[in-house]
């Protein structure tokens, strides 16, 4: 009886631990160096090629229904001739406190042990709530069964990546950090009985980036490329605590997170662009 109670108490403690942070195997994160990013869009097409996202055509594009899992946002500031154009690639930030996760009534989206915010397509019933709750607008919906609509017209379907399912109508989808590559790398690592090495997992967008603006890796590992670029201390868990600003703990003066004050704790870390004109440092 006492053993049972102890076990229950222990369980209770675990179950009251917010989000299981410290028990994650990996904490996949991406660092985007905006000073390197040129806005060319290679990553967008690479993503589309890797993840079987359909092409929706002119009509649907005009309605704002492109299915690219990532996009390059562009902001044009100032008037001619003092025009400044800024680019920012936006993908699913795999927020630690993802607003989308709480929204889904059927657990189609949740946080897994790798710190990923994942979407289970075949569980989705299409309530749109996750996409509505997402502050970054990175969730995409399958408005039609695009396969039937001719988006993968033969022989274009020969290209479809067999490691990624082709989604059907009524399903929400989003950037997965190329989870199929993570799965493959973990599979390899398991064969060799080791952890996944830094740089072993490269999502399609990171791989394609000509100017090497994107870096992907494990934030749990203090020696990884991303941890160094983000300038994070060895135990970055408190990044996930509420109200933590990256600027306060990062050694990199350029590190920031998109819409940080929303407290979604995104795991995509941007490095500020170096640019003449007004600086947005220390904006509190």
């Amino acid at each position, binding site marked *: 009886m006492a053993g049972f109670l102890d076990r229950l108490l222990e369980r209770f403690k675990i179950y009251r631990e917010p989000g299981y942070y410290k028990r994650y195997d990996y904490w996949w994160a991406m660092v985007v160096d905006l000073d390197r990013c*040129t806005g060319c*869009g290679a990553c967008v097409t690479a993503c*589309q090629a890797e993840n079987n996202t359909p092409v929706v055509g002119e009509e649907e594009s005009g309605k704002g229904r492109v299915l690219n899992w990532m996009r390059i946002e562009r902001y044009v500031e100032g008037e*001619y001739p003092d025009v400044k154009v800024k680019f920012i690639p936006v993908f699913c930030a795999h927020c630690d406190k993802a607003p989308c996760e709480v929204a889904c009534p059927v657990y189609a989206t949740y946080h897994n042990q790798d710190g990923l915010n994942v979407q289970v397509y075949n569980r989705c019933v299409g309530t749109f709530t996750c996409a509505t709750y997402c502050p970054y607008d990175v969730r995409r919906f399958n408005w039609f069964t695009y396969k039937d609509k001719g988006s993968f017209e033969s*022989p274009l379907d020969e290209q479809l990546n067999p490691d990624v399912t082709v989604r059907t109508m009524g399903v929400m989808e989003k950037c997965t950090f190329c989870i199929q590559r993570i799965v493959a790398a973990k599979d390899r690592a398991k064969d060799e009985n080791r952890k996944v090495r830094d740089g072993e997992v490269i999502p399609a967008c990171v791989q394609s980036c*000509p100017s090497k603006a994107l870096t992907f890796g494990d934030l749990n590992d203090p020696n990884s490329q991303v941890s160094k670029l983000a300038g994070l201390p060895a135990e970055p868990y408190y990044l996930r605590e509420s109200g933590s600003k990256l600027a306060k703990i990062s050694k990199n003066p350029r590190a920031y997170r998109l819409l940080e004050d929303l407290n979604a704790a995104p795991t995509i870390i941007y490095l500020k662009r170096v640019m*003449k004109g007004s600086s947005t440092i220390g904006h509190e």
Partner: protein
Amino acid sequence: MLNRRDFLRVVGIGSAGAAAGFALAELNAPNPARLIPYLIPPEDIIPGVANWYASVCRQCGAGCGIVVKVMEGRAKKIEGNPIHPISKGGLCARGQAGLQVLYNPGRIKNPLRRIGERGKGEFQEITWEEGLTILSKNLKELRDRGEGDGLYLLTSPISGHLKLLLKNFMNAYGSSKYFAYELINYENLRFANNITFGQNSLPHYDIENTNLLLSFGADFLTTWISPVNYSYAYGHMRQGRPGLRGKVIQVEPRLSLTGANADEWVAVKPGTEGLLALAIAYEIVEGGYYKGEDRGKWLAALERFTPRDVAKVTEVAEERIIGIAREFSKTKPSLAIGGENVSSYENGVSNLVAINILNYLAGNNIGISGGIIPNRDIEKSSFIPVNSLMQDASKGKIKTLILYDTNPVFTTPGAVKVEGQLKNIPLIVSLSSFMDETTLLSDLILPTHTYLEDWGDNFTEPSVGYPVATIMQPAVNPVFNTKSVGDIFIHLARNLAGVFQKEIPWTDFGAYLQASWKMVYNKHKDMKEIRETTFEEFWNNLLSKGGWWKEESQAGKKVYISVNKITPYLPKGPASFDGDDKDYPFYLTLYPHSSYMDGRGANLPWLQELPDAMTSVVWGTWIEMNPERATTMGIKEGDVIEVESPFGKIYAPVCLYAGQRPDTISIPIGQGHKFYGKYAEGRGANPLDLLPFKVDERTGAVSHNSTKVKITKTNSPGRLVKMAGWTKELGRDIVQTITPEEFQVKEG
């Protein structure tokens, strides 16, 4: 409640229902999937596990090394080859979309022979045997008639052993008419480099290590020469060197993607870039930053181009010119480059010469790390001004025209009227994978492999300071009944027999390629870079690595530019434009679309749906216009306007873009295909229709920026499909920035 009869009825109905349900489920049952085993299992393939084949990207001329992911014989993904010195693992959107070239539904699936009238698009499928027989019969007759020189071969500027093979073929056949044509070419740049550095080649611009890059209209991050390599270099220049961050100044009338990434934008008046370069050069010499002995001579030569005078013409403030000049000469190393935009004025060569001089005067940036590193001379270009080809055509000199990988009907200015000229040619043979505008006019279509199905190699120009050769190997089996272009010529040679047997004795192109590389190996095997002891080993390494390059820098070769020699080539004044200022108030800047280049990518749905980097427009042509100017003219975004030049007119919707001079409009090239597969056809407009028949006589490059236009608002139907909703940040700190000064402080 139930009597016996009812009970029996219920039982009957129940069983009938159950049976019907059972039967329906049976009918609905999915067809059983099939498990198709290999007949003979390939040794290197494990189903479900990807194989990667190194190859070369042929989506533009840059020659990036790629690796192709192949699963069960189908290409699944293209990625940059991480060890390749050009791509360094990266790949642009065009390169990624190579898969859709391979698997394009619009590909020609079988050899075709024209049956209807030319240009009507009526073709009949024939076998390869028939197709090649028709051609070889024609060639035989031609040669027997002694009109061997009437065989013309027009290709894109290809390099490597395929070019050699084609050359050998033409020589053996007895024709000297092997030409290359491409709209976006660097002939002017080659020519200018030849004048200044004495080298008829594209040099390596070492953007990677420079500290100040002064770019005159070079959109090197999207289309210019080798965008993937330059993007890598750009990234490295900005953030790859701790403590050092290179600066970029972009001089151009329309803020391109490169301009958007630059630190400063100099919105120069179109056609005066060369003058601006010379004014900067003048200031450098005058200010004493140039220390050469011939300082006086230079001063004399440049005296017409004082910042004060040039400021008036270029609409760039005098102080700014002086400031740039000082910064440019003080910062070491610095680099000035002149791009597509500058070279496609009518005085393109002069502009480029002026920019080259700038490099020379600001501390001789040539041959140093972070400057211009010249390559070896390459053989003389076979580039042809397309107008001279057309003259030959109209004179009836062309008896048989073989086209490969080029689409002159689409990529020549509208005024050339290629379509009409081609009528005089008795036989047009198109070696093409797609039914494009030119292929449609041909009499015989021999569909070729795409680059993922074919053998080949590429000798990159410009390379990265040292020679780079990339091998192309078939990653997948041919999807359709197509043939390698090399195989076609080898087959033709076999059919024609005679002298060919000696010149071209190989059975297929792969064998030819291997034999050629064996020659290369035998020639160079004593070099220390080649460690392989046998050719087989060398060849296998070549295929697995993706190519061969020796990693050493060729920096150190200095050049001397003599004033007297160079003076005649300097720009005399602003470029001249067709169309007078009063009737045609707008300068027209055409630029290759970042995805479609000269239009060849327009049939790839991924690229069609990739938002344009600056305007985020997809699936169509647009006209970029300054918002204030548009407002004064009563034009709103999305309005379809008529653009009229003295030579033609097109209709397209307006996209307001603040990075646009008020006196200039810009239109991307690439859309407006009439025939090019369902994703490209009838989409947008081809701005080349606005252009006159104007080429640089010395180089043959089309001057596509030398026209003025007028615009009128119309009510024509047309649609601007823009991905971005709003382009103002509204103080939301989305793209956060820090100033260079703060960056230096924090970094230090």
